């Protein structure tokens, strides 16, 4: 007979950039948690392991993990979700494209506007919509095109950061003018779209150029 394992896993948390901002505002209030499996490759789950079923997940379970990073846009990418037992298909968020090329305003010509309308295969996200998060807003603006019907902005809303975060069913991106130093190379950032009901996320690359890219515009 051996002792039962009564240990509790204890981990140290770090504040994210958003957490520091809210803390500095005196508005730091943790109310809920979510879980993620960033770094896990489920392809390592090996049902043919010669040692049997206890070892199917051994390659995953023995993986040493990296430290937490404070950038809230680059962590908690792949959330764990609660679905009924027997579920065979996971809700999948899609926008149809992974890269958007846009032209900025130049010499009187307005910057290009693009609508991003995510959808979710296998349901959900129709009520609470999606959260769109720009990594950088230097040469882009982000706006809600269609509101999510079930999303009620709280007193302190995610929209407090009106440039980087938006919650809705679809969104509008508008390119701004690029400085001359970027006329040749263009400028890139990423747009992460989270499903507010499913937890999934997709990452899109947004490129802004000085000139019209007729061949690969979104």
């Amino acid at each position, binding site marked *: 007979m051996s002792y039962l394992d009564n240990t509790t896993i204890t*981990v140290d948390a770090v504040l994210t950039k958003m957490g520091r901002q809210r803390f500095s505002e005196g508005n730091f209030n*943790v109310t*809920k948690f979510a879980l993620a499996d960033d770094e896990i490759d489920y392809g390592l789950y090996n049902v043919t392991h010669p040692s049997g079923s206890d070892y199917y997940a051994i390659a995953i379970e023995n993986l040493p993990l990296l430290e937490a990073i404070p950038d809230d846009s680059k962590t908690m990418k792949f959330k764990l979700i609660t679905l009924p037992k027997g579920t065979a298909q996971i809700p999948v968020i899609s926008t149809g494209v992974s890269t958007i090329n846009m032209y900025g305003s130049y010499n009187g010509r307005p910057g290009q506007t693009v609508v991003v309308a995510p959808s979710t295969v296998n349901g959900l996200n129709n009520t609470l919509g999606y959260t769109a998060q720009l990594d950088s807003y230097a040469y882009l603006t982000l706006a809600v095109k269609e509101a999510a019907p079930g999303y009620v902005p709280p007193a302190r809303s995610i929209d407090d950061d009106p440039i980087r975060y938006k919650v809705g069913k679809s969104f509008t991106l508008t390119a701004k003018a690029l400085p001359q130093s970027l006329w040749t190379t263009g400028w890139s950032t990423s747009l992460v779209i989270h499903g507010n009901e499913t937890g999934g996320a997709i990452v899109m690359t947004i490129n802004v150029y000085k000139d019209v890219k007729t061949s690969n515009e979104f």
Partner: protein
Amino acid sequence: MADTVFTIFGADDQVVATPSRITNALWSNGVGILTTFTTSLAFPTGALTDNDRYYVDVYASDPATEQVEFSLAYGHVSGAGADSSDLDYPTKAIYGQYKNFLLDNANGQFILDTTAATVSMSQFFAISIKRANLKQKLDPGNWALHLSGSIQIGSLHLIDNSADGYDYNAGATARSYKVVSGSITGGQVGTAIYGLVYPDYGIILLDPSTFSSSISMSLNTGTTWVAGANKNNLWTMFTAISASEYFAARSEERISSTHYFVRVKNQQYNYSTNPTFYSASDGTIIQPAFYDDPQTFLTTVGLYNDTNELLAVAKLSQPVTKGFDKEALIKVRLDF
């Protein structure tokens, strides 16, 4: 918000822990004992700049690349140790500055001893530890400074007497202890008092009149300062510290923590949005064994506010397996 992704903490899931006392090596780069000391000044022969009349910064090594460890200043109640032609009265100004800063009565005096008769400090060397090193305070009872005025005479080993648990300045603005001779491990030796330490300010005041003769330190208590004549008190004290090659100290801070108990029940979080978990085309779970018995491997805990902003994140050291027959309890500690 639907509970597909988030779980709201219950009232019993958040616990504010008693603040814990954390001590660390005081000096830059985690060094606990300074054995080398440099300054950018060319004492005693170099010309004094404006700031040189008041204080010098002391470094562990090259001032061009290292950060300041502490500053050294000399104060005198009547302005001695500075040139009388200097109408800024730098040493008198220093004395008044520390008096104003540390004493409740700005017109009072630094009292070294009251056991027999009141002994006050009319002059002092002030060691002010750089705040970045200090964190919240100097750890009283765990610093030691050696002074060497002359190799033949030997050195004086200074500590504080906080071990007796008595705050000589209780109730005043600044907590203080006496500076005495001894060692950190062996405690106080003798009864002589050499100055005052204010741990909450990271300031040590040393009265040179109490030790200059014992370590053969030559002080300038006149009203002239002659370049090259070894009459600069800051240089004299700097050489006494650097010759000793020993200044040990620890910082102290109180860390407040909140513990969040993340309780993951058997029915929760058994599916993943990880792209290796399902087919991107239609969302079908890739691993057939997961159809009836899904397993996930949680690596990261995110703490959110009510608007889904990720405020803090914690990583596990290894993945934790989750399934319909497994539960997990994770305690997330967040320090402030």
